[in-house]
């Protein structure tokens, strides 16, 4: 029998022999590990849930050219724009997204105007697929536009007599443009006074191929805070300004951060308590096994040999309870997430090393004191039972 197999054999025998204490240690370690796993899983699930919720509010970042014009207005009134219009290159924005590692849905917007029977109508060039994904709250009466179609803001109907199905001939662009109104959009915002047209078409009409006046981005907040992602993007877009579009994302992030901190503190307290309990139990075990340790020393066991035996016990307990803690933690997380946050916390394999690591760390940390006393035990006194 190899030395390693023998070591495993006697460690198992010792653990089984003291099954009551072994079960107690396993229970303490499993509970601690399961709690750490559960809180981790719940935290991850909450993050995903918050990200999902904030997604409903649309873009959370906006990218504009540094000297972009500012629309001046109050309520539904528009007084025009201040400053020269400036633009961003689509390619530059796409490259910045790739380099910064910021992930999420985005939509390109080009603001301009087209002339209909001598009247200038505010227009916005968009990719309808992108907009539809990013603005789920848009209510469209009719259809979303296909090729050769546009989407009119609901306020355009009273002002310019724009109706679904109407055909319009626009001029004032690079070439005459005939489009059909596929539907009318109502958002309750400035979109209601805008005519939405295919981005590429408007770029051609305005002679600004590949250029946009705004990019709206729904950054994935699971990859880092919104502020960090804005700063990261900003580094790769020197001629642009990256702003957080709303405070909703930030507030959610802050709230989530606080909840996570609370959970972390609770976990730390539980882990310290569990560690103390393990240390106490292990110390008692060492005291109870004083004679055995003395005997092992008398038989020629070095301090290192004894350290190996007792560490192997702690290791085995740690790994065993880590596996148990992972599974139990998954169940607890599922229960907490569904009953408190109305979300699902699926068991994620990446938390397995966390569960095993926590229980292993606790088992070993709790054993340090007892192991040191094993080092110091005098074999003669131990054998006498002193």
């Amino acid at each position: 029998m190899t030395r390693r197999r023998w070591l495993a054999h006697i460690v198992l025998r010792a653990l089984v022999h003291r099954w009551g204490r072994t079960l107690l240690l396993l229970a303490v370690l499993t509970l601690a590990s399961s709690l750490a796993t559960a809180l981790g899983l719940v935290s991850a699930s909450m993050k995903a849930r918050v990200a999902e919720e904030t997604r409903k509010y649309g873009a959370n970042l906006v990218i504009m050219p540094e000297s972009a014009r500012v629309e001046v207005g109050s309520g539904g009134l528009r007084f025009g724009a201040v400053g020269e219009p400036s633009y961003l290159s689509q390619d530059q924005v796409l490259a910045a997204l790739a380099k910064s590692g910021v992930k999420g849905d985005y939509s390109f917007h080009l603001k301009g105007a087209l002339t209909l029977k001598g009247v200038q109508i505010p227009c916005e060039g968009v990719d309808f697929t992108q907009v539809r994904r990013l603005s789920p709250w848009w209510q469209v009466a009719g259809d979303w536009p296909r090729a050769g179609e546009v989407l009119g803001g609901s306020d355009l109907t009273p002002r310019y007599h724009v109706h679904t199905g109407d055909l319009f001939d626009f001029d004032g662009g690079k070439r005459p443009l005939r489009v059909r109104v596929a539907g009318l959009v109502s958002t309750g915002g400035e979109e209601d006074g805008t005519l939405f047209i295919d981005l590429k078409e408007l770029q051609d009409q305005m002679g600004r191929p590949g250029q946009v006046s705004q990019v709206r981005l729904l950054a994935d907040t699971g990859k880092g805070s919104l502020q960090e992602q804005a700063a990261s993007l900003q580094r790769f877009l020197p001629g642009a300004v990256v702003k957080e579009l709303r405070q909703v994302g930030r507030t959610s992030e802050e709230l989530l951060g606080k909840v996570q901190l609370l959970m972390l503190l609770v976990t730390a307290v539980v882990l310290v308590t569990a560690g103390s309990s393990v240390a106490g139990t292990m110390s008692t075990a060492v005291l109870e096994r004083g004679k055995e340790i003395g005997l092992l020393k008398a038989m020629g066991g070095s301090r290192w040999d004894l350290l190996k035996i007792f560490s192997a016990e702690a290791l085995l307990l740690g790994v065993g309870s880590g596996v148990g803690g992972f599974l139990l933690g998954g169940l607890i997380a599922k229960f907490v997430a569904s009953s408190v946050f109305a979300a699902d916390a699926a068991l994620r394999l990446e938390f397995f090393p966390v569960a095993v690591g926590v229980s292993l760390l606790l088992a070993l940390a709790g054993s340090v004191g007892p192991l040191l006393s094993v080092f110091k035990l005098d074999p003669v006194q131990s054998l006498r039972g002193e």
Partner: protein
Amino acid sequence: MAAAIIETSQLTRSYGDICALKPLDLCVPEGEWLTVMGHSGSGKSTLLNLLGGLDRPTGGSISVRGTDLATLSEDGLARFRRDCVGIIFQQHHLIPYLTALENVMMSQYFHSVPDEAEARHALERVGLGHRLKNRPGELSGGEQQRVCIARAIINSPRLLLGDEPTGNLDHKSTTMVMELLRDLRDEDRFSIVMVTHNQEVAAWGDRTIHMDDGCLVREERTKGC
């Protein structure tokens, strides 16, 4: 005359103000069976602990097979114990959750590699070939002591130390154990130092030293059985 396996010079062991072993000069030739007798507190167990490298002297020197034990580190003493000495205790001190076979193999683990065949052979030599899988709780006192002997001899030590090995045994078991030790010594030619209260047990040795109050007070040759 055979070379000395044990040599002590002015060997002393004190615990604070109490001198458990007063300066002792002792020489034990290879192969000798030395019995140490004395009342409780006479210093005989202290001497045995020093010879086994379980304790350190506070004065003088102690050499076993040419190794000065006083100079050895903690780990050096552990090596000495597993390589050179076999110890038989009065209380047997077997590990309760291991079988007789495993208790013997445990000693092999510290020495080299656990070898089941060798351990079985050692138990067969002490007449316990049929009790290999029994745990200490399932063995009689005499059988437990024989497991203890098998464990002590498994690594072929040159020195066997016995601390009242028959102290807890009845007359029949005592005789059985002593006969066993005699036979094993005849085969393996190791030296024995045995502490006992029992005159009959002392008679099995080659020489007996009597201790009192930490001093060697008398020495006598015994015929050996």
